[in-house]
């Protein structure tokens, strides 16, 4: 005898431990099977794109911290690169290296969080995430030494970075880099062949390479589907063209591969940092532009307001979550005419329905975890 059941609607979120912020997933279920998945977002919408049209280019830098608040450095970097492109500013060599180093440290911090929280979603309650937080904490300490903040960093400036690193920074960074490989080996032992993680994630939420490209998915998700596309290699910015590293690529495009790609990227970031710390030259960290002021110790400070020429530009970088781009239109005024954030978290959500329809509720939680969204960046 078959039992007929009516579709049943379950709201996952907006307040739910596995939605990674205030994000709502409206699942239509037949028993345990998902018939339809609808995303409801906007709980964290702060209308940054409109606010930015009323503020000067320099005043907009703190907004970029608050989009992807787990990777503020890369948010800063993409925005200042867009404005520099618009104004054709050459950034000093040392500032380029500092940007690269900070972006890679941020990637380790962000991926550590992503992997830890993903293990949480799989059922490894809190232990892996606490291990990951231990390393993230050390990186946040380095950020605090460099710019005084830990989360919303506001470190990059148009034309360079806000200040040079103090003398104690490099020894502490070297100590951290010596520690991390041991830790990563520990995590790989703990998680990579973990029976529960493999059972929960192998063959779940599969995206083929063609689907991933058609759905504009970027970052570790795209690479897990087998597309070797990394903007750091394809279109190098800052000092990435001088570094040697490999692109981590998956084969199956399932949740497990995304997790493995992130773990592999942790190793690659470490490899890059080891090179970058030794290759960084001495010199100024900020270009003098327009009405820059100069501090008594010789450091240039970005002007609060300036007027880029009329035009438009799109600059993108490889943020920990994927292609982070800033599209800026200037009408020659002191504030952007249009300020658009191409946010990877938001666009990576597009195939969520494709991936989750037909699977179970438990899988939907793991799939959402594998996308690694930051709701501040989804809603902006």
């Amino acid at each position, binding site marked *: 005898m078959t039992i007929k059941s009516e579709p049943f609607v379950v709201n996952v979120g907006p307040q739910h431990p596995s939605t990674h912020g205030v994000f709502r997933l409206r699942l239509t279920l037949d028993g345990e099977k998902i018939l339809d998945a609808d995303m409801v977002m906007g709980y964290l919408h702060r209308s940054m794109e*409109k606010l930015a049209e009323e503020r000067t280019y320099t005043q907009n830098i703190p907004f970029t911290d608050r989009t992807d608040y787990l990777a503020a450095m890369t948010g800063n970097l993409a925005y200042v690169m867009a404005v520099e492109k618009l104004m054709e500013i050459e950034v000093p060599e040392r500032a380029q290296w500092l940007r690269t180093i900070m972006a890679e440290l941020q990637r380790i911090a962000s991926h550590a969080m992503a992997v830890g929280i993903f293990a949480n979603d799989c059922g490894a309650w809190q232990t892996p995430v606490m291990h990951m937080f231990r390393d993230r904490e050390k990186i946040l300490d380095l950020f605090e030494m460099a710019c005084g903040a830990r989360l919303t960093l506001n470190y990059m400036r148009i034309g360079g970075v806000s200040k040079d690193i103090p003398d104690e920074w490099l020894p502490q960074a070297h100590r951290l880099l010596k520690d991390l490989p041991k830790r990563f080996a520990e995590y790989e032992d703990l998680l990579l062949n973990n029976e529960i993680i493999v059972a929960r994630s192998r063959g779940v939420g599969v995206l083929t390479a063609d689907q991933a*490209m*058609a759905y*504009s*998915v970027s970052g570790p998700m795209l690479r897990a589907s087998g597309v070797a596309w990394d903007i750091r290699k394809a279109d190098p910015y800052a000092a990435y063209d001088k570094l040697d590293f490999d692109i981590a690529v998956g084969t199956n495009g399932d949740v497990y591969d995304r997790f493995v790609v992130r773990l592999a990227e942790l190793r690659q970031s470490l490899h890059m940092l080891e090179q970058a710390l030794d290759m960084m030259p001495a010199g100024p960290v900020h270009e003098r532009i327009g009405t820059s002021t100069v501090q008594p110790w010789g450091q240039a400070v970005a002007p609060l307001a300036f007027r880029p020429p009329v035009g438009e530009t799109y600059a993108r970088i490889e943020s920990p979550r994927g292609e982070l781009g800033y599209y800026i*239109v200037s*009408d020659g*005024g002191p504030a952007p005419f249009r300020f658009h954030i191409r946010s990877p978290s938001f666009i990576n959500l597009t195939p969520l329905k494709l991936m989750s329809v037909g699977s179970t509720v438990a899988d939907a939680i793991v799939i959402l975890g594998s996308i690694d969204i930051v709701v501040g960046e989804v809603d902006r």
Partner: protein
Amino acid sequence: MTTKVTGLEIAHAIEQQFPDAVAEAQPEFAVVKPERLVDVLTWLRDDADHAYKFLSSLTGVDRIEWLEVVYHLESIKHNRATVIKVRSEDRESPSVPSVVPVWAGAQLQEREAYDLLGIRFEGNPDLRRIFLWDGFAGFPLRKDYLNMPGGQMPGLERFPGEPGVPLSGRGTE
């Protein structure tokens, strides 16, 4: 390095295949006529010499005289990028064809452009507001948003488009 295909180059290539599909070509971008948009973009995606299989970004801009949608295309195969635009001069009910049939990744981005700029994408299977709630008055990223009924009126003169202030771009004074 990603090769930036200029608007003039891409416009020339489109002209070869689709005569009179290009409305305007600038060094930064090429403007395509709305009625030929889906044909042109499908060709750019499928043609082996272009292979723009990845829609990097889709967004709208209120240019005051017209509303435009900007497509940043990426060819992973050839490592090239280019910019295509389409315009709608009708501010009351602007509409352009949806590119969801070309790239499924446009789905959420078109919803965002509809929500914040009020551009209707004809053929989008699920065109609803995304960040703001149904019934929200006006489209906030429009330059004349503060004139909308129910719009916020902070009473600050530096806001463009307030009643009595002619609508113009800043920086023109």
